[in-house]
């Protein structure tokens, strides 16, 4: 296998031992990016020169005998929703085109602090609003498994970069499934940490009470290694939890679920789910039972409210968070010709700079928060949220983790749902409850759907600050898949994708 096909863990070890240099690894990725980007379009910005300089710096530090972490010198791609000084942050929007942030996101600082090499910024649905990356103002990303299909969203770029071997690791953010759903449809691993487990400082907000940065990877251990780098308390984020991060790396290496109680969520399955998705999910549950886990069916009756409540809370917060894009201080400015008032310039800029989906959500949220409608919409959505949290709390008294398919279907075709927002929103049906409750949740590949040969994702949900349980079950899932296939998912990816 060439360098681009190795796991991040292996690359880190090879670099640390001096068998290969970070510069070689980085150069291999830069070359592959140049080769496949015209087809995949994972990146909005490739920072090749600076990445190579960062790689060289790590090589010198290692040569000087410095002891660095397990991911030192390993390249990573960063979703364009995080600020990174020296590269534009656009969030996939015209309104921020060319904006150069003057500060680093905390998670970006931690990545750099770990000696990792940033290859560039990845494509996404505008302001993380979407499930296909088709809402990016700069064109969609294509799924490396089938270029005519979506790579999921909003973090389609981060997932496609992994599946297309354009980066061994990437950073994502998850508000309603933006890490997990792309992971599911690209055959990769994605984890949404406990809300407050990773810092949101420097993550351009869509919905503050739901957004969470998290790792995207091709193996469970790789995801855990990145999770360990970015997790932990940050005084710049008031909602950050002041407690040590769970030992996710240790948990990922256990690969054993004997004695664990695993709950299958009754409400997440059945009608509307692809047969192949259901089949692979069921097989995985059976494999976990064979591995010694106790399988229990659990009902979470209020999960049915999650999608509706989410589409009130998320747009409400987004309508307020996106108000600052008003042309006054940075980003796009339209109509500033001396004849228009500040208010007119704001209006013209927002009209030109925001895409359809962003406008739809701003209008929804503005309406939901309006006086006279607040109690009916935002207020009742918060009540539904409380009920969803109560469902989780009750479930976690009976089981250690809950499991479900990550998304009801495999990757759909580009253009298939773009004019049907409701169909698009349903892609996040299974992932949203964890955002609403703030618990830890991850998606792991469990093979390919027989009918279309496309990857299926398996979701593991654990109580807040028990992210380790997500990785422990994830590791076991990975291990059973390898037993079935006789090779790793990574190897499968190398066979199937560009």
């Amino acid at each position, binding site marked *: 296998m060439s360098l681009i096909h190795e796991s991040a863990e292996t690359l880190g070890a090879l670099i640390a031992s001096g068998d290969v240099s970070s510069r070689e690894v980085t150069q291999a990725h830069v070359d592959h990016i140049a080769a496949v980007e015209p087809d995949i379009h994972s990146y909005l910005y490739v920072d090749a020169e600076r990445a190579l300089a960062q790689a060289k710096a790590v090589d010198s530090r290692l040569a000087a005998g410095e002891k660095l972490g397990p991911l030192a010198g390993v390249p990573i791609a960063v979703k364009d929703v995080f*600020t990174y000084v020296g590269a534009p942050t656009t969030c996939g929007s015209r309104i921020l085109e060319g904006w150069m942030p*003057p500060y680093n*996101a905390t998670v970006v600082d931690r990545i750099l602090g770990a000696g990792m090499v940033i290859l560039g910024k990845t494509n996404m649905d505008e302001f993380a609003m979407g499930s296909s990356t088709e809402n990016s103002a700069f064109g969609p990303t294509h799924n490396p498994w089938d270029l005519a299909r979506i790579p999921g969203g909003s973090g389609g770029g981060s997932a496609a970069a992994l599946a297309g071997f354009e980066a061994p690791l990437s950073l994502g953010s998850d508000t309603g499934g933006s890490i997990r759903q792309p992971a599911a449809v690209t055959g990769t691993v994605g984890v949404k940490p406990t809300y407050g487990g990773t810092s949101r400082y420097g993550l351009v907000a869509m919905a503050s009470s739901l957004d969470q940065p998290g790792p995207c990877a091709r193996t469970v251990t790789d995801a855990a290694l990145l999770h360990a780098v970015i997790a932990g308390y940050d005084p710049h*984020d*008031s*909602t950050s939890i002041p407690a040590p991060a769970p030992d996710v790396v240790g948990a990922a290496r256990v690969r054993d679920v004997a004695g664990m109680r695993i709950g299958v969520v009754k409400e997440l399955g059945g009608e509307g789910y692809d047969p192949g998705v259901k089949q692979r999910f069921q097989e995985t549950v059976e494999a976990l039972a064979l591995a010694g886990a106790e399988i229990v069916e659990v009902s979470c009756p209020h999960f049915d409210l999650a999608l509706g409540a989410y589409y009130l809370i998320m747009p409400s917060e987004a309508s*307020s968070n996106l*108000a*600052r894009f008003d042309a006054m201080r940075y980003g796009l400015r339209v109509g500033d010709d001396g004849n228009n008032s500040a208010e007119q310039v704001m209006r013209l800029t927002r009209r030109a700079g925001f895409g359809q989906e962003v406008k739809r959500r701003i209008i929804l949220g503005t309406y939901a928060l309006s006086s006279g409608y607040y109690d009916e919409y*935002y207020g009742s959505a918060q009540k539904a949220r409380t009920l969803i949290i109560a469902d989780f709390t009750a479930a976690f008294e009976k089981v250690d983790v809950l499991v479900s398919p990550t998304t009801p279907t495999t990757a759909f075709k580009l253009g298939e749902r773009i004019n049907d927002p409701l169909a698009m929103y349903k892609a996040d049906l299974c992932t949203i409850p964890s955002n609403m409750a703030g618990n830890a949740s991850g998606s792991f590949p469990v093979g390919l759907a027989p009918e279309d040969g496309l990857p299926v994702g398996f979701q593991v949900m654990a109580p807040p600050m028990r992210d380790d349980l997500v990785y422990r079950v994830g590791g076991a899932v990975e291990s059973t898949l390898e037993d079935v296939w006789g090779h790793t998912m990574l190897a499968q990816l190398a066979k199937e994708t560009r």
Partner: protein
Amino acid sequence: MSYDDLMEYDEVMERFDPVLGLEVHVELNTASKMFCSCSTGFGGEPNSQTCPVCLGLPGSLPVVNGKAVESAIRIGLALNCGIATWCRFARKNYFYPDMTKDFQTSQYDEPICFDGHVEIDVDGESFEIPIERAHMEEDAGKSLHVGGATGRIAGADYSLLDYNRAGVPLIEIVTKPVYGTGAKAPEVARAYVSFLRDMMKALGVSDVRMEQGSLRCDANVSLMPKGSTQLGTRTETKNVNSLRSIEKALRYEICRQGAILASGGRVKQETRHWLEVSGVTAPGRSKEQAEDYRYFPEPDLVPIAPSREWVEELRATIPEVPAVRYERLRGEWGYTELEMQAVIAAQGVDLIAATIEAGASPQAARKWWMSELSRQANALGVDLEELSITATQVAQVQALIDEGAINDKIARTVIDAVLAGEGEPRQIVAAKGLAVVSDSSALQEAVDAAIAEHADVADKIREGKTAAVGALIGSVMKSMKGQADASAVRELILGRLAP
């Protein structure tokens, strides 16, 4: 210039009862802003005191300034408010170029302080002002509209924005409707704001400089026909930037509303601006619909839950009510009411107290601060406390006088030197050789010379006309260039010329 019909104030009072509502914004004097560590200093280069947080840059997040919460609680306690056991910030959404996030982080239905009251006194009559709430929020930036005739946004060529003030912590104190003030409504409003100013100062939580905007008052007033219990339509007057203008603006609004109501018209609910120069209120931008701020709990901040222990600790730091303290000090210092009022008006109470603490007598302390130093402050256009002389230094100057080392006249020279930054009073006296000559051959020689020069005067004194001694003292003082103790000179002369 006013186009408003006005009714005579007394006539309004015969027919209506005014009802007040006062909203006061107090800018806290914390070193850093409400949600970031930027400086709150006044007068910095535009936009020099900003960071990603107070500029509301994408991705930035607020973190609450604990000191501001502490100040908010202390203010609430001083206003006899209840302190919330749990409360949240809320977002107040509206678009304006001076709002970096296009929402203000404020508090809505969960204020940190609620249900208080304060007693104020107007000409010996006591009034209770009920307090609805005091809540925390952040200030906005400042717009400077350039070009155009009015300095307002309409008609300006362009606008400049300074975000140094964006994110400075504010406490908004809101009264419940204040009934029963009768004709004294404007004075009551003024006394209330004056009370707040003194209390904030005593708490040490704000510089409370109305002219710099660190205490701002929006005055609401409506008129209720005598005998009615139905509240009238109110107007809110902004831009009232001094105690005097509060009184004048309210008086004006009462007369304007009185004229409208008396002629059968209806008062329009609106925001008005006080125009200091012309002494009138003028309507602000009229809003066709009520503003909908779409408040919701701020998801970027965690709730504030001050422990009862902390609140009690803070309660122990609440100072005496300023009016009570002033009356106590007046008794201790032996000032007349008039003298004390002048000291309070000049904001000299703390300075004088400190000067007395440092050893000066109450009369001496008052003399220096209220005459020489007040004159200097006026000339510089600053407040007493902004003068570069401390209470301790003033007490030292007085001590030098009491010791007989300098006289009053030289003391002024010493004070000038202290103000000029030349050092401590004693150093200055030593360095400049200003100490008066009270018992030396030089003084004796000067006395002898004066007697010789003014032999005719000397003769009169020898004859017992001691009143003439003044002329000789004057001559000696002149030759000594003022550096002599006049009483010592007098004694020397009288000793020489004893019959």
